[in-house]
Each structure stands twice: as structure tokens, then as C-alpha cells.
């Protein structure tokens, strides 16, 4: 698949960003220790949705998130990203799809210490286009301004607080204007005050960028504040609640 096709995929005015059809995931296939951790997951995530994925530890949340982020492949079933089936795509194509359409926010921010704050934000763009031009740098600075860290652009990630680092990682996730933003317990490592400010930021950007957001969280306050809550228990979605006040 060419880069052109990916961009065309992204530009599709398709309300359904993510569609899962009977997604199953097993480990140690063919061995006595074979275990199925996801048992046929089905759901749709539309553009503009702000959903939470909750569930106890070991329920398969991280596995599902990795599959949604095209970092891992399901054992069976089909995942459609912006209407495009992904199961038969090569690693190269999945990488390109991920680069253009998915933004990640990790629990431990995972910024690259060797680069400045601004370079970290621009990294997904630099991976694709090489040296950033003035316009791209301005865009990166604008994102840093939106997360309130414009003055820290020259600093190294380690010079920032945990909350600031997470805000930089949000700016990084949004730099490519992705259709889907996946956040793996983005507030799990932050104090209550910082956690709520980071969450508010995600909500604001979700509206501004009109992307679909899926947050994996253990925090009931965060899941309650989302427009939709998917509950995963023992590898199956046991409930899919929508909260009217958010829609």
C-alpha cells in the first residue's frame, strides 16, 4: 500500500474510525499452555467518540489496546481502521497506517530523552518527512502552547515534571492530527490534580481535533466522564454504556 493510499484513507469522511469484528487473541498457539485472552470482541468507535475501556487487571485491556493500535495482530477476526481491513496488511503497511492515523499516549509518557521537548512533539512528523520546515515547527510550537508548555520547548523531558511530560506526550500524539487517539492509563501515574488537568486536556483536544479517543483506565471518575464506557472482563466486553450527558 502506498503512502498516497494511506492519506486517501485518512481523508475519507467515514464516521466509523474503528470497527472490530469477532477479534480473538491467543498466546502459545498449538502448545499445551495455549491461552485465549480475547474471546471475540465486537464494537464500533465513531469519529468524535470519547470512550473509556475499563476492566480489572488481566482482563485483556492492554492486549486489546495493542491490537487497536496495530502494534499487535489478532489471532482471528477483523479490525477495520477507517473502513480499511487490516488483517492481511504487511508490517510495513500497518506501520504506515499507524504513523498517519493513530496517536498514542502511554502511562509513562515515554518521551525520548535524547531529544528536546519540541523534537519529541515533532518526532512522528520527522519520521515521515525528515527535517521539519518552519510551518511544521510552528505547528509543534502551537501544540506546546495548547498544552501550556511553549516555554519549555528547548528543554529535555527529564527537566519537566511528570504532568508536564504527559502533556508533551499528548501534544506528540496529536501532531499528525490522527483519526484515533489511544491512551493507556494516561493519568495512572499522576496525582489527582494533575490527572484531572491532563484528562481535561484530552477532552478539549478531542473536540478541537474531532478525533476518536479511547482511554484505558482504572479510574472510575475518568470512565464516568467519558461519553462511553466499554467494560472488559476475562477477555469479553460485558457492557457498553453510553453516557447521554456527553453525547
Amino acid at each position, binding site marked *: 500500500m502506498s503512502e498516497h493510499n494511506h492519506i486517501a484513507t485518512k481523508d475519507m469522511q467515514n464516521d466509523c474510525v474503528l470497527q472490530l469484528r469477532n477479534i480473538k487473541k491467543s498466546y502459545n498457539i498449538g502448545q499445551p499452555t495455549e491461552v485465549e485472552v480475547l474471546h471475540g470482541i465486537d464494537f464500533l468507535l465513531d469519529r468524535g467518540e470519547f470512550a473509556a475501556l475499563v476492566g480489572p487487571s488481566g482482563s485483556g485491556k492492554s492486549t486489546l489496546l*495493542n491490537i487497536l*493500535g496495530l*502494534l*499487535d495482530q489478532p489471532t482471528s477476526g477483523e479490525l477495520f481502521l477507517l473502513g480499511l481491513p487490516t488483517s492481511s496488511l504487511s*508490517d*510495513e503497511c500497518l*506501520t*504506515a497506517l*499507524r*504513523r*498517519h492515523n493513530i496517536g*498514542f499516549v*502511554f502511562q509513562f509518557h*515515554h518521551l*525520548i*530523552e*535524547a*531529544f528536546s521537548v519540541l523534537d519529541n512533539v515533532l*518526532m*512522528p512528523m*520527522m*519520521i*515521515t518527512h*525528515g*527535517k521539519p520546515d518552519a510551518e511544521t515547527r510552528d505547528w509543534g510550537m502551537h501544540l506546546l502552547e495548547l498544552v501550556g508548555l511553549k516555554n519549555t520547548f528547548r528543554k529535555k523531558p527529564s527537566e519537566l515534571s511528570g504532568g508536564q511530560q504527559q502533556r508533551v506526550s499528548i501534544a*506528540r500524539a496529536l501532531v499528525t492530527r490522527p483519526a484515533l487517539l489511544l491512551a493507556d492509563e494516561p493519568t495512572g501515574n499522576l496525582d489527582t490534580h494533575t490527572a484531572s488537568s491532563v484528562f481535561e486536556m484530552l477532552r478539549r483536544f478531542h473536540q478541537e481535533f474531532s478525533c476518536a479517543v479511547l482511554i484505558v483506565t482504572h479510574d472510575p471518575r475518568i470512565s464516568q466522564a467519558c461519553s462511553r464506557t466499554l467494560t472488559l472482563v476475562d477477555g469479553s466486553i460485558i457492557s457498553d454504556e453510553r453516557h447521554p450527558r456527553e453525547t
Partner: protein
Amino acid sequence: MWIELNIALKFLRQGLTQTILILIGISVGVSVIVFINTLITGLQANLIDRTLGTQAHIRVEPRPDLNIAARPVTPEAVQIIVEDLRAQKLRSINNWQQVLVALEGMPGITAVSPIVSGPAFARRGDATKAVSIVGIIPERYEKIVKVSDNMIAGRFDVSPGNAVIGSMLAQDLGLKTGNRMRLEASDNRSAVVTVSGIFDLGVRELDSRFVYLDLKQAQALLDLYGAATVIELTVQDIFSASEISEMIASTTGLKSESWMQINSQLLNALQSQDMSSSMISFFVAVSVAFGIASVLAISVTQRTREIGILRAMGTRKAQILRVFLIQGALLGLIGSFVGSMVGWSLVWVFNEFGPKLFEIAPSFDIVPASVSLATLTGILAAIAPAWKASKLDPVTAIRYV
């Protein structure tokens, strides 16, 4: 490629201590290679120069006289030969003038000089020394051995009645330029000559025995009128001397020996030096390669999580591969450049403050060769760690602590 280079540089700069240590290792390795190779090349050039400065590259002589055995009666017959080996008398090369012309026309030959050479005694007063008379045509012989550059007294003049002798012979007979001495050959032939010059070639055998005379005078003294017993040659490429010598032997039917055959021990020594310097270079290069590989392998482990993040953000496997290959290349390039400079400094120190037995002639070819080789070694050494990095599963890599 910009982002790969950028990431590679940032990774190297971030692990600065590690980077500096491996760069020192590479620099030391490359400086050893540069210095050893330059030293050995210089030493060899010096040895060859000294050896070939006083002798021809090829000597052509008549074939030795051999007894011709009668053929066996039948091919199956057992033949027992009892023979006395023939005494080798001084003989001229048949038709040497034509041979000379033929040799001059052969490719790769730069100078040809006919010589008549034979034994005699040099006498002054009661003192007698066994000498070797060398009758030459000076303008031809000077192209083979530049005797005039090694004169310590008088001049290189072998016109009739004059002789040029070695420094040790002059010392033994108490001769100075302008003195006369008697040369006595076999069959009571003798001549009185004036010492016109004294040379010092730095070779004991030559300095104590050689007496240079005009070709015609030597022919008369040795009773070899119109003869040449040896034809000496120089060739353009000294290491092709054996090949040319074989060609001469096969085309002229004469005995032809190259300097390599005459100095086989020297050649052996040169080859051994070559081999030992190649071995040293090889093992140092292998150590450098393993050094780079191990540092990059550690770097891959240290940066596993960052690799995972980069992959999650859409970095292609090939890009990750290039990041580490570039690191290997940069380490090789920078390390070898510094190492070459250090190697050159060592050469300079050797020339300035060393034993001064000989000077190492600088050969700049080794610098780009070393830098290219070390850069290539860096890339090759980086292949395994780079491959490992590119194959990391992003999910596992991100979780790596």
C-alpha cells in the same frame, strides 16, 4: 535519512562516556594499524632501496658448462653416470651485442649494461688483495648502480689507465686518489692503473673487492677481448623482475637471475614482515569490530523502550536498522580519522625522535584506506545489533524496563 542520522547522533551523544570510550578504542586500533603498516612499508622500502641501490634487478650470464651424458641404449636401460663436474671458466655471452639490443627492446626494462668481470690481484708494494675486476661502460652502468653518488674521494672516472676502487680496498692497500696500483690477472697479464676515485657503497663485499675499469681495459686484462661475461638490467617494476627474468631466460637461452632469486632470504623476510603486519592489522580490526558490535549491542538493550516508542509512532523497521548502522559507520569514521592522525603523529615521532636508522616515507594512501576500511568495519559490526533492534516487537519493547 535525515531523521536516522539525527537519532543516531543523539543516541551517541546521550551515551557520551560509552561513545568516547569506544572511539578511543577504535582510534588506538586504527593508529596501530596505520603506524605498523607505515613502519613496515618504510622498512621494506628502505631495505629494498639499500639492496637494489648496489645491484642490478636482473643478471644475465652464460649457462654453466655441463657434461653431456650419452643417451641410454634403450628407454628401459638403467644408466649409471659417474662424472666429474666441469670447471667453470670465464666465458663471454655469445653475440652479447645482439642480446643487448634484444633486451633493450623488451617491455619493462629500463636499463641494460654489459660487464666483463673476473678475478685478479691488486698489488701495491708488498700488499696484495684479491679483487674482482668489473669492466663497464660507465654511462650504461650508472643507470644500474649509481656509483657516482657514493664517491668519497675523487671522481667516477674509468677512462683507460684509471680505476675506481672501494673504500675498504683503498684502506687495505693504503691508496688515495692519484696513487697507482698494479692489477694482476691470470696468465701473467697485468696493468698499472691510477686510482681516480674511491667509492663507498655501504656493502662490505663491494667496498673491499670491486675495482671498476673501462670495459676494453678489463677485457684485455682478463683475456676476453670483445667479450661481456654479464649483462645487468634494471626494470620498471621491481616486483616483476622474476617474471621478466624468466622471459629473458626462455628467449635468449642464457642464465637469468632476478634480484628476488639472488636475495631470496631478503624476499622471505619481506614476505614475513608483510604477513606479520597483515596479521596484526587483521586482529586489531577484528578487535575494533567486536568493540563496536558490543557497544551497539549494549546500546540496543539500553534503548529498547525508545525503539519500541519509535516503532509505535510509525518508524519503519528499515529506519531503525539504519539508525544503528549509521552509529556503527560514525564510530568507525570518527575513530579511524582520529586514529589515522594519531598514527601519523607516531610516524612523525619515530622519524624525529626514533633510532634514525631509517626514515619512514609518508604514504598518504593508507589514511583514506584505513578510514574507509574502519567505516565499513563499523557498518558490518553494526549489522547484528541493528538487525536485532529492527526486529524488536514494539509491544514488548515499550514494556521493557
